[in-house]
């Protein structure tokens, strides 16, 4: 029972990260009909920006202001990168066949993930500055102090030599209690709660943005037909650029939460998460925001239970199998709307 509950928490925590990445994926797809394969790598860049900012603020300075600065700077930096990528790589190809843009996206993905594996530093202002971090893994600073948010389990036995003579029953504790023995069969951490909260909040915020605001209306118009939208006075270039910037900022946010969860970062981290988030977005119905979140949580839970109860060999097989089944049974995804194709 405790094991099941812990798997549930782990699965949701993994799904949360997929969800945050998938939101950016699905939003860009919704507007541009472009699968931005570089999305995961933009996330990775955001993580490294966050790493640098945290480093400059003083490693592990876990304060609310510090954490907010890390998030904000990383999101702004990624928004700029998103803007640059769209402006110089995708916009010139907008009228070209869709495959061209797709290949370009793969190119950018590789350029970022392998470019970041180079070591490059310059000396300026009397010290050495790392420009590119190199291939080796780095430990992400604890910008949010990890605390046990809640723990559930059997209470500690009064006599440690006779564990079977425990008081029995179930104990539930809140707050940090790292050293206490017992009562740790299921542990829920503060960053898991924070991540989940942020993912849900962003999903709602984006949903409101797309369906309740003028900008959202413009996004939907561009998505429907960008040429006609332009004729009707929608500033298509600006809408697309803003969408990209928003998606990239989201990626940075997802990346930092991911780094808080996994603690170790390296330049190839974006490829794998990006791929999983893409699957999640397709399962949920690509272009659909709540779909992306639900698909991601399902995928996270599914992987966790499969690994926990069978074998880790099945993790990816199940993820991709799930994708194939969804595509066969419901090609538009769980939440997607089937669209009639004009021939």
């Amino acid at each position, binding site marked *: 029972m405790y094991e099941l509950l812990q798997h549930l928490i782990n699965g949701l925590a993994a799904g949360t990260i997929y969800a945050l990445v998938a939101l950016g994926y699905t939003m860009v797809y919704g507007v541009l009909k472009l699968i931005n394969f570089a999305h995961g790598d933009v996330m990775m860049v955001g993580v490294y920006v966050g790493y640098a900012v945290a480093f400059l603020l003083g490693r592990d300075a876990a304060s609310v202001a510090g954490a907010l600065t890390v998030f904000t700077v990383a999101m702004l930096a990624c928004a700029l990168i998103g803007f640059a990528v769209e402006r110089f790589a995708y916009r010139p190809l907008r009228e070209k066949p869709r495959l061209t843009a797709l290949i370009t996206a793969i*190119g950018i993905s590789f350029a970022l993930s392998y470019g970041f594996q180079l070591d490059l530093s310059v000396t300026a202002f009397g010290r050495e500055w790392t420009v590119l971090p190199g291939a*080796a893994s780095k430990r992400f600073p604890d910008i949010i102090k990890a605390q046990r948010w809640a723990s559930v389990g059997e209470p500690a036995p009064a006599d440690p030599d006779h564990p079977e003579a425990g008081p029995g029953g179930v104990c539930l504790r809140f707050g940090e209690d790292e050293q206490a023995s017992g009562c740790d069969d299921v542990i829920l951490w503060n960053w898991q709660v924070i991540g989940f909260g942020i993912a849900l909040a962003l999903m709602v915020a984006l949903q409101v943005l797309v369906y309740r605001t003028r900008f959202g209306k413009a996004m939907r118009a561009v998505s429907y037909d960008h040429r006609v939208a332009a004729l009707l006075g929608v500033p298509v270039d600006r809408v697309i650029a803003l969408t990209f910037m928003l998606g990239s900022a989201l990626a940075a946010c997802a990346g930092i939460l991911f780094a808080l969860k996994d603690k170790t970062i390296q330049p190839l981290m974006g490829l794998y998460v990006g791929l999983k988030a893409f699957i999640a977005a397709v399962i949920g119905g690509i272009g659909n925001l709540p779909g992306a979140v639900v698909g991601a949580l399902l995928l996270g839970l599914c992987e966790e239970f499969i690994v926990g109860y069978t074998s880790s060999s099945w993790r990816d097989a199940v993820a991709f199998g799930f994708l194939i089944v969804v595509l066969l049974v419901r090609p538009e995804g769980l939440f997607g709307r089937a669209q009639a194709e004009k021939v």
Partner: protein
Amino acid sequence: MRLQLVAACAAVAVLGLACEKKTDTKPAEPKPAEVKPPEPKPDAAKPAEPKPTEEDVILLGEVGSLTGGQAAFGISTRNGIELALEEANAAGGINGKKLAVRVYDDMSKSDEAAAAATRLITQDKVKVILGEVASSNSLAMAPKAQEAQVPMISPSSTSPKVTEVGDYIFRVCFIDPFQGFVMAKFAHDELHFTRVAILTDKKSAYSEGLTEVFQKKFAEMGGKIVDVQAYSQGDTDFRAQLTAIKKRKPEGLYVPGYYEDVARIAEQAREQGLKVTMMGGDGWDSAKLFELGRDAVEGGYASNHYSADDPTPRVQEFIKKYQAKYGTVPDSLAALGYDAARVAVDAMKRAKDLSGPALREAIAATKEFPGAAGVITLDEHRNPVKPAVVLKIEGGKFKYVTTISP
């Protein structure tokens, strides 16, 4: 129009960047990192010697993981090899010829390692190949070397299968069964554990090898293996496996994986409230383990080839030289890289010529060679017989605990 051109150029540049990395080890565009023989110093007493031509240089090849998941291993090994060759050159080289090594990066991938080995053999025509660290990569390289009759010395691949490929494949480290045995014995005799769980990397021949022997020996000694879970190298989430292990309440967790995965596993084990003593092999050996795992890895035990605390004079001398050159204390990968290169040089001195078969004979005859990581005598299976040390992690360092002999 002009803007489009600029954008196109940018795109090409970006793609070019991506490709550059990719082609690094492909034959089309050779850009090898090469350790040149020491340049003659601009001393007045000695007029500049003519640059050594191809004929004057004996070329060795090295395949290593200079980038990717095991980059720290590859870099340490390369440093050890460089140091050994520098020494050999300072001592006059081989019959007046200088030694040089050509290094190819395999990005920690076995298919790249095989391609690099082929390239060293066919294109660079090296006399001896040094490498790889990971057994899976050595296994990919060994058939190429065997087929071309170029001796290959692996510094630190511990899977028994590596030297089984053929009589041209050697190593200077002990093999997996021994490390598994060492840790099983230590867990049973010294730590008095009766319940141990295993988390193995099923993608690596090394990890599987250690697991197999540990499992068998620990059970033979009367201990109980309560659970065996698996992961694949490169996984970042081990929570599901650890949650499953936690239910079995083990005292110890044997993780014969590589440092990066081990650091994550230790961190996540603590996160899941799993209180166990972690044990592992030489795959733990990297300063990265402490940087990434911080205090989560404290209290763990690992078997290894050598310890920098070893008071033996030749070990301390090696450490001093290495520190002078690189500024860090050498890890065992560096010591084994150093040993591998020195065994190769020693064999070159004894061999009647530098052809593959003659060198093979000479290497196979290596007896009581005083290496930095133990005295090396190669047995008939081309594996050295030597003891292992057990180290404990304390205060972000490996501390020597005991030596366990075969």
